[in-house]
């Protein structure tokens, strides 16, 4: 059904751009009558023609083809279920996504953003409950109030208190009231929105924002048309962010210096973009290759790679997500992802094909590595990365039939595998 609507999506996108069939057919190098058949879902297309049409329509090929649409439809369904009070036409979601792809993407994106804010809100509440500073501040506050209340009651209820004692209690009250005022100010400062401590760590770091704006490929930095300092001066950062971003940019420069784009791409094509094989070829570690693969130019002939880097607790250190594979920033991801398994097998790459509940598939390489030498009595600190791509068909030398398949999800709330033993939260669409 969804596949059959590929032509409809092409037609709607073409009309939105006010292109005629003739114009688009010319760009795609096909006849207008053939395009007409495609648009009426009477001919299928794939490969080069699909890529050319997608480029002409300024959309990703996957947005026209099935995978992306399934993901989009799933996100739209989630949005509908989360707003049950609005009577949406859920039986016509596919038609809606095909006829109004722009609005569909907008709704899905806004729904995703709301979900992220909800997640952040939960994390903030959790932080508040377990925040040692806040707990200490509240304890101080209660102590101050206890003294003031008890002392004031004594003064108010005992008319025959010796003058010396009375004076002493009044002094105590004044001192404690001052402490209370200071404690209250400290708490206010702590929650002041301009305070960096609470807020900035919830959003993307400046480096991640920079990468996101540039589709994760800093071309001018790679080709030395721009220096680190020039980039930094254009970002207007706090001193703390400046130092962090500078370090991240230095690491980026180091990566492109060691694996320069042109020579890397030539070899990568020959090795089917396989991180394990490329690491052997370049005599380097899999980690460096994974990061290089996740930071390639956005081109239709290069497979798209996403990456997630986490520490041994599963906390996300770095991530590049793809539209079809969103990564939660604060845990909550599917515990069956091989990146978590790799943490128990450092230095042993794990190759796996992830089967998502909605039928999307991702080829992955997961790899854990110690960050420093182990010390006696201390566990070795370990981190892990998972490189993933939905474009596994562009990796022809990797035998997908022999790659272990893993039935996983993104996170429990949007995963329809109801019997999954790893489930820790209900599936939001279950009631449907």
């Amino acid at each position, binding site marked *: 059904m969804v596949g059959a609507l590929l032509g409809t999506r092409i037609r709607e996108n073409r009309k939105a751009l006010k292109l005629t069939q003739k114009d688009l057919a010319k760009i795609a190098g096909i006849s207008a009558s053939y395009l007409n058949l495609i648009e009426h879902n009477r001919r299928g297309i794939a490969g080069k023609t699909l890529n050319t049409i997608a480029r002409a329509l300024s959309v990703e090929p996957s947005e026209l083809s099935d995978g992306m649409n399934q993901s989009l439809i799933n996100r739209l369904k989630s949005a509908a279920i989360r707003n049950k009070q609005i009577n949406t036409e859920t039986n016509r979601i596919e038609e809606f996504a095909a006829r109004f792809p722009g609005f569909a993407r907008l709704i899905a994106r806004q729904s995703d953003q709301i979900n992220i804010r909800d997640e952040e809100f939960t994390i903030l509440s959790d932080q508040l409950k377990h925040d040692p500073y806040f707990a200490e501040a509240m304890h101080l506050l209660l102590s101050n*109030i206890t003294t003031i209340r008890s002392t004031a009651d004594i003064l108010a209820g005992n008319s025959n208190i010796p003058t010396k004692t009375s004076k002493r209690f009044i002094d105590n009250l004044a001192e404690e009231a001052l402490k209370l005022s200071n404690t209250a100010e400290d708490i206010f400062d702590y929650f002041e929105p301009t305070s960096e401590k609470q807020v900035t760590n919830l959003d993307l770091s400046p480096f991640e924002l920079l990468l996101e704006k540039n589709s994760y490929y800093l071309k001018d930095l790679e080709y030395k048309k721009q220096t680190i300092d020039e980039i930094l001066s254009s970002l207007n950062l706090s001193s703390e962010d400046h130092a962090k971003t500078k370090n991240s940019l230095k690491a980026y420069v180091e990566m492109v210096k060691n694996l320069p784009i042109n020579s890397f791409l030539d070899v990568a094509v020959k090795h089917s973009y396989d991180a394990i094989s490329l690491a052997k070829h370049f005599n380097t570690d899999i980690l460096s290759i994974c990061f290089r693969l996740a930071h390639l130019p956005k081109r239709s002939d290069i497979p798209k790679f996403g990456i997630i880097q986490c520490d041994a607790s599963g906390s996300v250190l770095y991530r590049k997500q793809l539209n079809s594979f969103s990564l939660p920033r604060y845990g909550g991801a599917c515990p069956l992802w091989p990146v978590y398994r790799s943490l128990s097998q450092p230095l042993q790459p794990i190759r796996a094909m992830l089967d998502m509940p909605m039928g999307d598939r991702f080829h992955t390489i997961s790899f854990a590595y110690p960050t420093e030498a182990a010390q006696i009595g201390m566990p070795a600190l370990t981190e892990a990365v998972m490189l993933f791509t939905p474009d596994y068909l562009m990796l022809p030398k990797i035998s997908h039939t022999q790659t272990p398949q893993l039935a996983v999800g993104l996170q429990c709330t949007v995963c329809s595998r109801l019997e999954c033993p790893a489930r820790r939260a209900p599936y939001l669409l279950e009631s449907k």
Partner: protein
Amino acid sequence: MKKSVVIIEDEPFIIEALTFLLENEGLVVRSISDGANAIDFIIKSKPNLVILDIMLPNVSGMKILEDIRSMDEISNLPVLMLTAKGQKKDRRAAEEAGVSKFMTKPFDNQELIENVKAMIKS
């Protein structure tokens, strides 16, 4: 002979207020603010009641309560826990450790006095 109370509390102004209130009721009041020496202090003072905070320097009030209940000579001593940690889990932990009465800060002076009197009498 006058009944006596030991206050184990690290806030000096709360100690002053409690001392005034209890002395006004004819009780002998002694206090200590460091949890580390609390048990020795109780044994020496032989009080009829202990008023105990939870958050104390060095040794927590909860540990002191457990120690009181595990030492034969003071194991039956009434203990009134007076704390800012008033969550259900704190109350449950204190009850499991054998607290006689649990009150949260800030407290009502009159209610505290009545509780102390009742505990000493029993």
